[in-house]
């Protein structure tokens, strides 16, 4: 497999999609013989046999269309010249693709295209125009129709999208872009306007920026001419070299071809194009991965280590040596005075597995404590706990392709079209093919109803009542006898206790309706649909985990899947949609205070022994501090030094005031990041980090897929991040060094059974692998728990509903819940530094018309949002997507400070913050507050340059 090429990687295009089946059709094409599955197009069979039939409207990611008339062939015994893309192979077929008649026809068709296409190939930005190549191939040296007839050569370019331009003068109306938008992305934003000669491609009769387009780039990728082209290609020219790597945004983990110019420090990314062989995305992308990589070279990027004596002093640039010495002596001095446990570290879900591994190793071996935690604490820690208790492993059960076999999806607390767009496209494709979806979410998200997709049920679960809801689902299934008794008997344990618990009347839909707000009749129908399947799959996000009963809810989902036997095969399962690119990997790498890599408790002597003997240290058998404990201990004075790796805890953790107080109370805060951020305001040492374009390592996505991240360019700061961490440990007196990142993975594989078969060489050979990778599964494990659960039997856990203490009151009568939007990502450190901010320049507060009416709020008003812990202000958006009583905002912009109002409440098992439920009040801000908001807004980061 080619992972890095000295030239540009051209992926083969077979013209039409692969057809599954036995190769029983024997066909002869230009004298070459080949066996293919019946239904395979002549075009595809020819390509497989080694014959490249000219084509313009066909591409193997889209169904055959048959409009360009370039791929005509002759078939023995068939009249005329059928299009090879729409002609299926039958046994015994004899095809001629290159006869004189066919050649003459093709040349004529090409001349017609050329008569209405810019003749200036040399002036065209795009070096891979298929028209240009084909014209040469079919020998269309002259255009007998002339170039001065009616044409579209003066049609105006639409350059409204910040990332690509549409030049209709080069368009041949092959509809590849329209079909890509429909079939691959599922947005249906493009169409052909008019008819005949007047036919033109248009984003619905308006410009791209005002249209329904979500800027995923599928149309640009599909365009065979220079009509739709990345602006970066127009500006920089064509790339000269390809490196296959992995996107650093969400947990889908899309594979990309980074297409670049130059080498070494002069390397420049021309464009990021999704890789067809990438198993997670199969050649699709979203606006973030495809276009929003400019932050990596943004002027705000810090390239030098900096120190200062106090947090009120200005930063001073220093050498790496000085910064590292200062950290090492500082941390050791704190430990000498306040004890070994007075310092700790926070690992990042944005960094590679190898980087996370060395950070937890530094904490355990050099700091000599277990005070290591991860930002997964604030997102999917309940997933780890809940799925481990029930199934025996802390990860989703399926691969993404599994959804192609799903009949009923239960989507809860996730908004994939915004937060996991590439997987959402896959879900929508399956839904258009006939699968059904139940959406449980307080908001009317896009998957409830958007063009060509409509949920069978939208259950508007009131925030904070998830467990009551899932119990009512299970209650319905059990009391109506819809559960899978054989599966429970053969595969599960603690069945009787659970069944008698769930059958109790207080769990019935009728009893829980008042609490959850979900009408009992709707819930019963949804439960029956899920139970009927036959393949039902659960997909969920942070709307499940970020609650006081987050872990309970995860177990409730696992119960539901086990009750109905929806575990252990394709098309079913319990699937967390992971938020960050490597949140799965960072958890896998032992970044929790109680676990070594592979989710093995630090108290297990045997496991601890492996690391103690390899690292030559003694490691405490007691778990260390979790992030919230670190903050509490800091305020109390016993925790005084913190290494923060690639995470902006001040912006992303709840109850900002408490976090700031904790950081202020510490003696030494070290921030290792790309940018100065809200957290670095409290640091006295800043270490510059590397972007994903500079990293060598692996990310693990939501389907446990280990993907390679390859360096496109050398580190802009002179060191790799894992190297910096090793140097800190070494300076603290614990020597740590590796020759390269591959060596770190070798150490992970040698010490972690689920990674036993993983190495960079194996990954490069396989493309990617899903853990566990070991002797039993040398190529990885797409579906888990097939024969038996990882823990042996699946364990049904009684899930008693306990209402959150964060109740609405007369003072705070509304519930605030939070989420993401398509163009921005988390705290926005990256996306706010790109043109993505053109779409989402500010966080807004969505509020139901009746709640708005009551308070005199109109769309665009600056409103004051307050909870019992804090107050912030932001613009309002009156929207009937919200149910009455619930308001919603995103947390992408620091000025909004949504977490100023969120509270310290958290999951009982894992301390995952209860972000999704905060009792609030909203009112129109007074003039002074509104002015302050606008002034602050003016000084926050503008869009990228």
């Amino acid at each position, binding site marked *: 497999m080619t992972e890095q090429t000295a030239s540009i990687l051209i992926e083969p295009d077979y013209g039409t999609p692969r057809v599954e089946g036995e190769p029983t059709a024997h066909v002869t094409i230009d004298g070459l013989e080949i066996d293919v599955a019946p239904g395979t197009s002549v075009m595809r069979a020819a390509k497989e046999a080694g014959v490249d039939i000219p084509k313009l409207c066909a591409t193997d990611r889209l169904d055959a269309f048959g409009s360009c008339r370039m791929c005509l062939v002759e078939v023995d015994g068939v009249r005329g010249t059928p299009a090879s893309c729409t002609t299926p192979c039958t046994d015994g077929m004899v095809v001629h693709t290159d006869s004189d008649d066919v050649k003459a026809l093709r040349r004529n068709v090409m001349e017609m295209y050329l008569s209405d296409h810019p003749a200036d190939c040399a002036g065209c930005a795009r070096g891979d125009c298929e028209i240009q190549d084909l014209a040469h191939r079919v020998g269309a040296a002259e255009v007998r129709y002339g170039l001065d007839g009616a044409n579209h050569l003066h049609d105006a370019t639409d350059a409204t999208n910040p990332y690509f331009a549409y030049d209709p003068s080069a368009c041949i109306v092959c509809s590849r872009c329209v079909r890509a938008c429909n079939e691959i992305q599922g*947005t*249906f*934003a*493009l*169409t*052909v*306007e*008019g*008819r005949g000669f007047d036919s033109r491609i*248009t*984003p*619905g*009769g308006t410009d791209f*920026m*005002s*249209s*329904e*387009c*979500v*800027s995923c780039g599928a149309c640009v990728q599909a365009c065979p001419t220079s009509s739709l082209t990345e602006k970066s290609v127009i500006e920089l020219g064509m790339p000269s070299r390809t490196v296959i790597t992995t996107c650093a945004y969400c947990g889908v983990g899309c594979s990309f071809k980074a297409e670049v110019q130059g080498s070494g420090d002069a390397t420049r990314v021309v464009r990021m194009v999704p890789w067809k062989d990438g198993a997670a995305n199969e050649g699709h992308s979203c606006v973030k991965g495809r276009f929003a990589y400019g932050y990596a070279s943004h002027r705000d990027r810090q390239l030098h280590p900096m120190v200062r004596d106090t947090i009120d002093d200005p930063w001073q640039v220093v050498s790496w040596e000085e910064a590292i010495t200062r950290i090492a002596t500082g941390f050791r001095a704190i430990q000498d005075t306040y004890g070994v446990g007075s310092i700790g570290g926070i690992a990042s879900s944005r960094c590679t597995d190898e980087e996370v591994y060395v950070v937890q190793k530094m904490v355990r071996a050099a700091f000599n404590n277990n005070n290591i935690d991860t930002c997964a604490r604030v997102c999917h820690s309940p997933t780890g706990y809940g799925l481990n208790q029930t199934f025996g492993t802390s990860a989703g059960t399926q691969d993404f392709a599994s959804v192609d076999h799903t009949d009923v999806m239960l989507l809860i607390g996730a908004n994939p079209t915004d937060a996991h767009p590439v997987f959402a496209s896959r879900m929508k494709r399956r839904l258009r093919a006939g699968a059904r979806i139940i959406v449980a979410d307080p908001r009317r998200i896009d998957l409830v*109803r*958007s*063009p*060509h*997709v*409509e949920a069978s049920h939208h259950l508007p679960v009131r925030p904070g009542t998830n467990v009551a809801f899932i119990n009512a689902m299970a209650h319905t299934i059990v009391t109506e006898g819809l559960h899978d008794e054989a599966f429970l008997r053969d595969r599960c344990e603690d069945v009787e206790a659970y069944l008698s618990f769930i059958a109790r009347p207080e769990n019935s839909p009728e009893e829980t309706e008042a609490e959850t707000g979900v009408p009992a009749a709707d819930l019963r129908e949804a439960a029956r649909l899920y139970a009927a399947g036959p393949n039902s799959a659960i997909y969920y996000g942070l709307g499940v985990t970020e609650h006081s009963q987050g872990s309970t809810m995860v177990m409730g989902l696992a119960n539901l899947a086990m009750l109905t036997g929806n575990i252990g095969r394709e098309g079913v399962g319990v699937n967390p949609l992971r938020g960050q690119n490597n949140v799965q990997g960072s958890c896998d790498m032992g970044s929790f205070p109680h676990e070594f890599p592979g989710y093995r408790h630090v108290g297990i002597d045997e496991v601890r022994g492996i690391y103690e003997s390899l690292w030559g240290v003694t490691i405490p058998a007691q778990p260390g501090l979790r992030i919230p404990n670190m903050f509490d201990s800091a305020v109390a004075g016993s925790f005084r030094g913190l290494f923060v790796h690639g995470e902006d805890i001040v912006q992303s953790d709840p109850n900002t005031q408490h976090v700031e107080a904790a950081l202020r109370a510490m003696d030494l805060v070290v921030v290792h990041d790309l940018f100065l951020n809200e957290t670095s305001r409290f640091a006295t040492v800043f270490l510059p980090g590397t972007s994903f374009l500079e990293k060598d390592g692996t990310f693990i996505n939501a389907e446990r897929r280990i993907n390679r991240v390859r360096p496109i360019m050398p580190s802009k700061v002179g060191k790799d991040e894992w190297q910096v961490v090793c140097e800190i440990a070494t300076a603290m007196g614990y020597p740590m060094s590796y020759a390269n990142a591959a060596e770190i993975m070798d150490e992970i594989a040698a010490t972690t059974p689920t990674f036993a078969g993983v190495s960079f060489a194996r990954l490069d050979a396989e493309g990617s692998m899903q853990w566990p990778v070991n002797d039993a599964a040398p190529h990885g494990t797409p579906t888990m728990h097939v024969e038996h659960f990882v823990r042996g039997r699946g364990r049904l856990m009684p899930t008693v509903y306990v209402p959150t203490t964060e109740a609405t009151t007369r003072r705070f009568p509304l519930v605030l819940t939070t989420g993401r*939007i*398509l*163009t921005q990502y988390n705290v926005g450190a990256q996306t706010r530094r790109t043109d993505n901010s*053109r*779409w*989402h*320049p*500010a966080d*807004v507060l*969505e509020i139901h*018309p009746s709640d708005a009416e009551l308070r005199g709020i109109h*769309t*665009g008003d600056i409103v004051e949002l307050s909870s019992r812990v804090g107050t912030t202000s932001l*613009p309002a*958006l*009156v*929207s*009937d*997507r919200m149910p009455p009583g619930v308001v919603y905002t995103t947390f992408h912009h620091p000025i909004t400070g949504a977490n100023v109002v969120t509270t310290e409440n958290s999951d009982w098992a894992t301390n995952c913050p209860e972000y999704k439920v905060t009792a609030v009040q909203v009112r129109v801000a007074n003039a002074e507050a509104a002015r302050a908001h606008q002034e602050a807004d003016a000084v926050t980061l503008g869009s990228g340059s």
Partner: protein
Amino acid sequence: MRQRGFAAPAPPPPMDSQRAAAVRAIAERHAGSRGPLLPILHAVVEELGHVAEEDVATIADVLNLSRADVHGVVTFYHDFRRTPPVAHRVELCRAEACQAVGAQAVFDAVTQRYAGDEDVEIGQVFCFGNCALGPSGTIDGRLRGRLTAELVDAELEASR
């Protein structure tokens, strides 16, 4: 603050204007039938005179289609007119049989004669099935054979 593109869910449309309410009612009337878009567009033209730009979003919403889907269909068919109707409409055949008996000269003369006349609109049609009596055309919906520019003038004059 203006929201563009997919920045945020579009705010709910302000109370449907009278026209939007009428379009919604028409769309909902046909929404349950098979292949409802064409009957809806026919009904909108019939009852409201034309398919306005703003109607596209309403129809798309009722049928759960994209605006682009609806736009593509509206623009494919000339009869789904996108501007309010004018007082008089003349449609002239430009297909082969009529061309063979001088339809092009009639078309040229008539389009030239009424260029800029806000009350008269000239359209083209490819065959009325009235070939034996070409050049053919319709004047305000009435089929006429053996047309000349003068006959068009006279009939329009009479009905003004």
